[in-house]
């Protein structure tokens, strides 16, 4: 059966795409952010995942408000990036894993998580940039499965639902008849708010507590409603539900391999955690 080697939670600000394209990793503004990654690269070299299941949110590339699934999953041979309108460079396509996609679809719908299935799916910066950050020299052999959660149009799935969804993803991966090694990635956050008079809101105290609890006690997050999370982390900080779903997939106890936290990248508190299953 397939094995989950661990998980990574990481910020996905579009601006990072420009920094990568312009090789600004050692620039004073960017260094504290990019310096968080080499220990995670070393860990990935050690655990050697074959597949990445990436839990993220689309920002109006693949999904418009005409059809807005709460949970959607890719089931394609490959996933293409495209023009998102804000001038960040597009990146090369990522390889899919339709066998795992369909195993997840079958298992999750059986477990009563009624997903939207996508045999064609454009992936935006929230999917591509974390992979570029984690494998700066593209790992061409890596296969991927995108799992998209709605964080655009409220109501959003509750933290409780996301954690349960993640746990079901984890069980499904572990029941996949394959010798693949799987890493589960959650992208977005941490605290930030782009819109309104409260734009620029950041909550370091909450973010740091969230990062600690995500590792040791993810059920702690379910005490908060989505509106609570908007108040505590900003209208876009609520993307941390992608971290929660990914953490759910790792099951019980995990060990943090490496963490990093830096303010600001663009308007965002940037977080990173690599976790190994124990």
């Amino acid at each position, binding site marked *: 059966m397939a094995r989950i080697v661990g998980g990574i939670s990481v910020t996905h600000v579009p601006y990072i795409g420009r920094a990568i394209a312009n090789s600004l990793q050692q620039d004073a503004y960017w260094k504290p952010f990019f310096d968080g990654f080499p220990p995670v690269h070393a860990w990935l070299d050690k655990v050697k995942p074959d597949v990445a299941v990436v839990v993220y949110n689309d920002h*109006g590339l693949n999904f418009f408000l005409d059809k807005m699934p709460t949970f959607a999953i890719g089931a394609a041979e490959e996933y293409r990036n495209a*023009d998102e*309108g*804000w001038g960040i460079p597009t990146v090369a396509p990522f390889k899919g894993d339709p066998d795992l996609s369909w195993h997840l679809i079958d298992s999750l719908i059986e477990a009563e998580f009624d997903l939207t299935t996508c045999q064609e799916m454009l992936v935006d910066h929230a999917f591509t940039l974390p992979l570029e950050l984690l494998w700066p020299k593209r790992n061409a052999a890596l296969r991927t499965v995108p799992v998209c959660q709605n964080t*655009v149009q409220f109501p959003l799935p509750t933290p409780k639902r996301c954690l349960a969804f993640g746990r079901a993803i984890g069980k499904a991966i572990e029941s996949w008849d394959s010798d693949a090694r799987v890493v589960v990635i959650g992208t977005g956050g941490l605290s930030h708010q782009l*819109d309104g*008079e409260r*734009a*620029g809101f950041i909550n370091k105290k909450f973010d740091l507590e969230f990062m600690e609890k995500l590792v040791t006690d993810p059920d702690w997050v379910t005490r908060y409603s989505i509106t609570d999370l908007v108040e505590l982390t900003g209208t876009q900080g609520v993307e941390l539900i992608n971290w929660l779903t990914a953490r759910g997939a790792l099951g019980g106890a995990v060990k943090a391999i490496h963490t990093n936290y830096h303010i*600001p990248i663009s308007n965002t508190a940037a977080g990173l955690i690599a976790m190994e299953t124990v």
Partner: protein
Amino acid sequence: MASKSKRVIPGTTIFDGDMARKGYALNKMCYSFNSEENRQAFLADREGYCARFGLNAEQTKAVLDLSVLAMLAAGGNAYFIAKLGGIYKLDMQDVGAQQTGMTKAEFQAKLVAAGKN
């Protein structure tokens, strides 16, 4: 429609069903800006482009004024408004500064300060 009491978070608009209905045309226009051809068509005739997507007077004025708060009040969603901002090469600190009445330098300083608390 029965009115529901909504929790108020100061300076924050929750993009819920009411806002999604109100802002549909505006957000649909902004979604079209994923294409360079459409961005150029907008720049060639901004008012005509708004009309083509059926924006109402409030939305059209907000777009022509490039007023982010007015677009939000008219049902705009932050991610879609950002695609319009991209046409004018506005980054998120420009947008943040405009909404909070700060200079860009002041807004950036506020972000840096949030990391030192």
